[in-house]
């Protein structure tokens, strides 16, 4: 569906608030909306998480199945991440194969999991060169009220942390919890005027010039970044965002992932 052009009067209002250091929903610039996280709701999945970030709602399901390794990594398991922006979630989403926004979302979620080393791929080898565990991470967006990146990433790691490798089902020994070695958390900010606003809602996303997602690991290092939207960002601004991103990620990790 075609987007409705946002009224200038609304844009002016958001800008006017920003100059006063305020946001339409009353949050501070670096404040997240309320987060809720439930795991294990989907019995048919090997791991699952329902994330609510304000009204944004995302369901992530993890499926773990035996399959063939890639020929260049014969003794490593495989991670495949997919995101579905189903038309149920927003008047702006259309049915059909994932578009560039959906693919970018899946790839950024994937990057956090992969580059943080959260999953030890070698431990997922069953028979070198023949059979390994394939971990499918499927992100299903249910309600898009902004900042899908952070909600999806949080859902992915929470689903992985509570996932079981279904070995018994394939006569490969007993089921065991998927070993997770790090906890990547994504934090996203948009730049609007000269201000940096974290966890943007849909209105804030649509007026912003630039968006930056920073994924950090449990030890506070950075394991993935993505700048999106066709705007500029200064080096100083990047450092500012990274600093706050590390703090917020730490809080989220402690509160919701008990790390």
């Amino acid at each position, binding site marked *: 569906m075609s987007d*409705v*052009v*946002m*009224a*200038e*009067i*609304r*844009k002016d*209002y958001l800008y006017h608030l920003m100059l006063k250091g305020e946001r339409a929903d009353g949050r501070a610039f670096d404040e997240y909306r309320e987060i809720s996280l439930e795991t294990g709701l989907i019995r048919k999945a090997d791991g699952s998480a329902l994330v609510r970030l304000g009204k944004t709602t995302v369901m992530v399901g993890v499926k773990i199945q035996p399959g063939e390794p890639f020929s260049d990594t014969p003794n490593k398991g495989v991670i495949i991440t997919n995101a579905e922006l189903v038309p149920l979630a927003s008047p702006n989403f259309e049915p059909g194969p994932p578009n560039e926004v959906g693919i970018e979302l899946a790839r950024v979620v994937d990057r956090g999991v992969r580059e943080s080393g959260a999953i030890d791929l070698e431990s997922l080898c069953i028979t070198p060169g023949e059979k390994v565990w394939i971990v499918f991470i499927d992100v299903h967006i249910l309600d898009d009220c902004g900042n899908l990146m952070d909600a999806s990433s949080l859902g992915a790691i929470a689903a992985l942390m509570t996932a079981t490798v279904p070995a018994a089902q394939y006569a490969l020994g007993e089921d065991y919890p998927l070993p997770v070695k790090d906890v990547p958390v994504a934090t996203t900010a948009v730049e609007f005027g000269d201000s940096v606003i974290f966890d943007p809602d849909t209105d804030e996303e649509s007026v912003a010039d630039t968006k930056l997602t920073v994924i950090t690991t449990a030890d506070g290092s950075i394991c993935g970044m993505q700048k999106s939207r066709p705007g500029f960002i200064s080096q100083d601004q990047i450092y500012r965002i990274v600093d706050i991103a590390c703090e917020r990620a730490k809080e989220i990790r402690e509160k919701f992932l008990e790390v």
Partner: protein
Amino acid sequence: MDRMDRNVVVPGDILSDDPNRSGEGTYVKDGCVRSLLYGMASSYKDKMRVIPLAGKYVPSPGDTVIGIVQDIVFSNWIININSPYEGLLHISELPRKIEMNEMSKYLRIGSSVMIRVKDVDSTMKVELTMNDRRLGILTRGRVAEINPTRVPRLIGKGGSMINMLKKELNCNIFVGQNGRIWVDGNDDDMDLALKTVLIIEKEAHTTGLTDRILEFLRVEKEARS
């Protein structure tokens, strides 16, 4: 099966066994008046009618609405009126004469307008007009959206609710039939006005609302001072 004793009805509920009592939001089947909508049923001038609790705005001639300019095509502005149907504002429907090459100077894409529905044909082609001095471009203030089905409640009996809000809040408030509300005043008053509008939307199906809102405003204003 007779659900007449209750107010909230769902599509198909029987409202009366007298087919002559079929009013707005109802239909007749097997001699019975039934609801077409999920909404509030009531008796009105000998008829049963159902006011929906949700739904889109369907334009009707004479409605005053708030629109957002989406595009400019030939000598028309294409206006989103918060409806399944977009409206067309022809260059000749302005209060003063302007040239075609001046159109985007007068009304830009993204401009908000207070506008009237002039005509709607059977295929839902919607013609708009701004040729009235009470209509025009909104350059100040703020706009909120509520479900269009709650508009009558926000206005109230004889304008009781909206007049009370204007008086208590020192704000200029305009309620578009399409559920868009324009508020103009000082920042604090506008904040409170929009907050109040959203409460009225949420509690539109309850009674005694005007008194409760009046009380709410008293408490809020006391806390402010």
